[in-house]
């Protein structure tokens, strides 16, 4: 089988000026920002809980989770409802807030470059690939690495 023929659908979104993409399999839907209920005694990136048609989902700030500065809330803000793989084959749903949700694009595997291998950078970064479209760079991220609950207990001890 030739790798050239393998491609995938990705949802792209903006955080500030940076362009990111996640595989559509991980995204259940995109909803508008509604009322958020903040849960006390939680880290800043945990924005609170939202009501998605009767379900209670945690809402996380993608910017803060990726180590970017916090952004202003605008009417363009969207929530990606993501499915995160947990240990023992469970999945949980979360909402992740992004500045702007853009479009679904087909990306050919051949276009995807591995991120630069600087020391242990590749192991810790959630960026699994980079698409360079004539200087227009899109970073493909692994949402399981970004939003996994495994690290929360550590982060939470403040």
């Amino acid at each position, binding site marked *: 089988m030739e790798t050239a023929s393998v491609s995938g659908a990705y949802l792209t979104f903006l955080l500030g000026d940076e362009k990111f993409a996640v595989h559509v399999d991980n995204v259940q839907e995109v909803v508008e920002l509604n*009322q958020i*209920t*903040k*849960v*006390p*005694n*939680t880290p800043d990136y*945990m924005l609170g*809980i*939202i*009501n998605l*048609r*009767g*379900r*209670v*989902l*945690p809402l*996380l700030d993608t910017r803060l989770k990726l180590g970017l500065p916090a952004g202003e809330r605008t009417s363009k803000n969207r929530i990606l409802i993501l499915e995160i793989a*947990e240990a023992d084959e469970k999945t*949980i749903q*979360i909402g992740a807030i992004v500045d702007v949700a853009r479009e679904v694009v087909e990306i050919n595997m051949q276009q995807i470059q591995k991120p630069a291998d600087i020391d242990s950078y590749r192991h810790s970064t959630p960026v699994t690939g980079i698409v360079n479209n004539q200087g227009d760079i899109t970073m493909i991220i692994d949402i399981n690495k970004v939003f996994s*609950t495994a690290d*929360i*207990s550590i982060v*939470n001890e403040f």
Partner: protein
Amino acid sequence: MDNNQKRFIEDTLDLLNELDEGLLQLESNPLAIAPLEQVFRTMHTIKGAASMFGFENISRLAHLLETLFDKVRQGHLPVSDNLISLTLQAFDRVRDLLGKKNKGDTTQSDNLDIHLALASQFLKDVEYAAATAIGLSTGYNKNSLATYLLQVKPTIGISEQENHPLIFIVKDLEALGTIKTHQYKDDEGYITDWSVVIATSIPRSEIESYFIFVEHECEILLEQLADGNLLQEVEFKKAVDDYHQGSARNPEELKICASWLSEKSTSARKQNTVVEDAGIQRKSKTQDDTVIKVSKHKIDDLINWISELIILQAQLLNIAQRDRIAALDEITERMETVTNHLRDTSLEIGLVPIEALVTKFKRLVRDLSKQQGKKINFLSKGTETEMDKDVIEMMTAPIMHLIRNAIDHGVETPEERSLAGKPEYGTIKLKAYRSNTFINLVVSDDGKGIDTRKVLQKATERGVIKPDDELTEQEIFNLIFCSSLSTAEVISDVSGRGVGMDVVNQRITELRGSILISSTEGKGTSFHIKLPLSRSIIDGLLVLVDTTHYVIPLNVIERIDRIPYTSLDRENHVCVDVLVNEELLPVFSLRKKFYSTAIPPKTTDIISVGFNGVTKGIAVDSIQGKIQAVLKPLGEHYQQVDFISGGTILGDGTMALVLDPQRLFKESIFVN
């Protein structure tokens, strides 16, 4: 492990519970037929299923034990303590094995070897004993108790003063069983005859053989009156006395009386058996009628959907009221009724009777009281009361612990009990009943009660309280929930159990329940546990702090006071003592702790919550009203925020956080 094997394990675990129940019944009533049959049947089922699904070791063990119980059924073997203990222990091991996740561990052939060896040794012993018994006395008809009428007429003149062997022989008969003898003398003091009614398991020929050496000096007439020991019956004893005293002794009358009585007792026994059978049949019949197995997952799903329906219904009501759409009024009202019914019914589906739990407790009481040489009866009432299966599982260990404590520290030894003027047998009771939306479980014993002085002394030693603290009785009892008290000396006679009283309390609190202790020295102790019927629906008070809604469970709320916000205004924002209702109350202000205090409200409402006899206050901005909240877990992202038990969606689609007050105060202590 494939699905069939999983099913087998599930079914077998149920069967093992039934088996335990049957064995315990059999132990307390060794002659009853119904439990014996049940035990035998259950073993047979386990044996068959085990070999079908490849659990050869279990099948072998079940087969051996089945053989033993078959002997019991045929009357070759009495139900003995040994037999019951052996069987219980063997199946305990099977239960352990089935609990193993790895199939290899379960089917490993040598893990039941000890029990196999024990059982086969027991079987050998029984067979050997049977063989030797037959060898020694052929035709020895065992267990055939019978009542005989014996008349001994000396043919030579014997007076009481003489040392004639016949006199001794008649006296010796007394050793053979239950006996009533009467001696008749003529006017000259010579013995004319003896009339003896004897109930014995010695065969007829053996009784006759007693008289071999005096054959030529007496006439013997031996007649069997009936099977069994009729001398147990009051009526028969009276008949025998009448017969002995009467001038015209007519053996026929006695025989008629005997046969009539023996018939009566057999039919009564039969009736007993029939009644027992009917009981069991009735039980299994209702099970056939109503029980289907549904995976817990499906029920959870159903309840989830219904929870959402409740939320939607509340939203609809909200819109109808807001927009004043009169046409919707009737519909929303009816929908409310229907959803409420639906909610109640769906919650019932997930409930199971606590019966299974009770069998475990019976076992515990039996094993532990034997081990400690105490005599204890275990009584249970309301075992048909239904509870959430998860809750039952969560409550098993805590209740086990309470019962263990009752055996360990509550009920005295038989000697101590008789000294105290109590019946030799102690009693431990488990009572379950439902009241409103709560399940009540009461564990009580009639033992020596809690020694408040000892508890106080220990608490002072460990620095839990100060020597000059004045505590109410309830507060003293509650001290046994302190982790520093419930360990070591206070409760450690039975080691290796891992649950202390603090864990009992913690588990109950987790389930949003409460526990109340009452105890009278010398009379006994009782623990009253109250649990909410549902884990996902909470009756609560909706309050507002800043812009966030909170729900505080109603069951812990004691009172509500409104005070000026400035009364709270101190440097330290958590757990400051505030004067409420003329008493100093430690108050936790949610606003001061978690929200901006820039533009505070004018007043603040202090909600006094009480648990374990301690009252604390939670300060909120305002109270919105009562609410029936459907609890939704916040998920693993919020596992660290344990003072919030979940979220709930309000009628307008916004959300409220459900507070766990007890944890909130734990947290606040931690933060301080």
